[in-house]
């Protein structure tokens, strides 16, 4: 138990060792450890974020799918409606066209009937006149009875 100069020398050595550790040993390793901790924390955070994004994306894809299905069914419905409309329109226009054609035909027939009647009438009048003149050849002078013949012709019209 003899205290001597060794104590001072050891204290000096101790302080030098402390200085060395404080300056050269502790900081680099602490830096490495802290950097690694940060890397790990970042990795975990990135993983968590990825998971959340995946969840979000799958939800979004379901939404989009649902919406698309709805749109598709709407489009099909509209198309069906439109098709039936077109068919209806076509029916209507066909009917109108048919009516028009029918009306035209009827008018033509009417015309034909009229002109046939006219021709017949003239023929009848001529035949009547011719017959009458044959009968009356002797008694009737065409000139004298012209007014009579004209009125007859008028009547037959």
């Amino acid at each position, binding site marked *: 138990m003899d205290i001597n*100069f060794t*104590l001072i020398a050891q204290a000096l050595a*101790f302080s030098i060792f402390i200085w060395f*550790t404080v300056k050269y040993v*502790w900081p680099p390793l602490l830096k*490495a450890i802290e950097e690694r901790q940060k890397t790990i924390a970042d990795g975990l955070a990135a993983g968590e974020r990825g998971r959340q994004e995946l969840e979000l994306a799958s939800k979004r894809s379901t939404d989009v799918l649902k919406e698309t299905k709805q749109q598709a069914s709407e489009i099909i419905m509209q198309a069906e409606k439109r098709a039936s409309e077109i068919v209806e329109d076509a029916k209507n226009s066909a009917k109108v066209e048919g009516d028009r054609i029918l009306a035209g035909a009827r008018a033509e027939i009417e015309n034909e009937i009229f002109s046939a009647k006219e021709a017949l009438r003239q023929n009848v009048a001529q035949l009547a006149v011719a017959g009458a003149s044959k009968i009356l050849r002797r008694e009737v002078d065409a000139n004298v009875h012209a007014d009579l013949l004209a009125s007859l012709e008028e009547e037959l019209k």
Partner: protein
Amino acid sequence: MAADKELTPSSYIEHHLTYLTTQVGGNEGAFWTLHIDTLVTSIILGVFGLGSIWLIVRKATPGVPSKRQAFVELMIEFIDNEVKNTFHGNRHVFVAPTALTIFVWVLLMNTMDILPIDIMAWIYEHVFGLYYWKTVPTTDVNTTFALALSIFFLMIFFSVKVKGLGGWMHELFCTPFGKNPLLWILNLLFNFIEYVSKPLSHSLRLFGNIYAGEIIFLLIGMWAATGIAGTFFGVFLGAGWAIFHILIVTLQAFIFMMLSVVYISMAHESH
């Protein structure tokens, strides 16, 4: 052992407990004695321990660590954790590296105790030509007192630094019993005893444990020299004590480190 000395139990023990000394600067007197063995062994151990950690640490990578780096990290994180639980401040500036220094250095110095003393003595004498050479620096009170007193002065330094000189004086005079001027002397006396007992118990605990271990090795060695039975038991007892001593050596280094951290932490906190 030198041939010119008669080998008796007392000369055997004396031989193992004598320092290699020198006088500093030509001064006479007991104080100016220097224990070369203690100093050289401790410095070699400190340089070896901290130097090898430094060699590993300077190539430290934040990526996948090598096995050596993992080992150093394990040790440093263990110490850092202990310090974190005790010291509430920025421990990375001073306290934690100091704790690492103490732990590594004291552990290595204590571990010298496990080296077989007589073989080491033979090596010192016949390889290095040193008749007296004490292997274990922590069986020298100068070492343990040097460490404990350094911590003691750090304690005072941090007390003054954190609380200011006035704050520290206030603490010395007004705690733990109260501010009443009648109690000032009592407070001061109480604090004085506390301040004296800290480095004393701090250093003597380490010294006592390691010194006792050394003495027991010596006694076992002496028994081993008494005959066949002594050698037989000496071998087993020596091995058993060495194995048990691994625990003591580590535990004492840890306790010394923890007490240093606790004392420095207490200096940072006001009552």
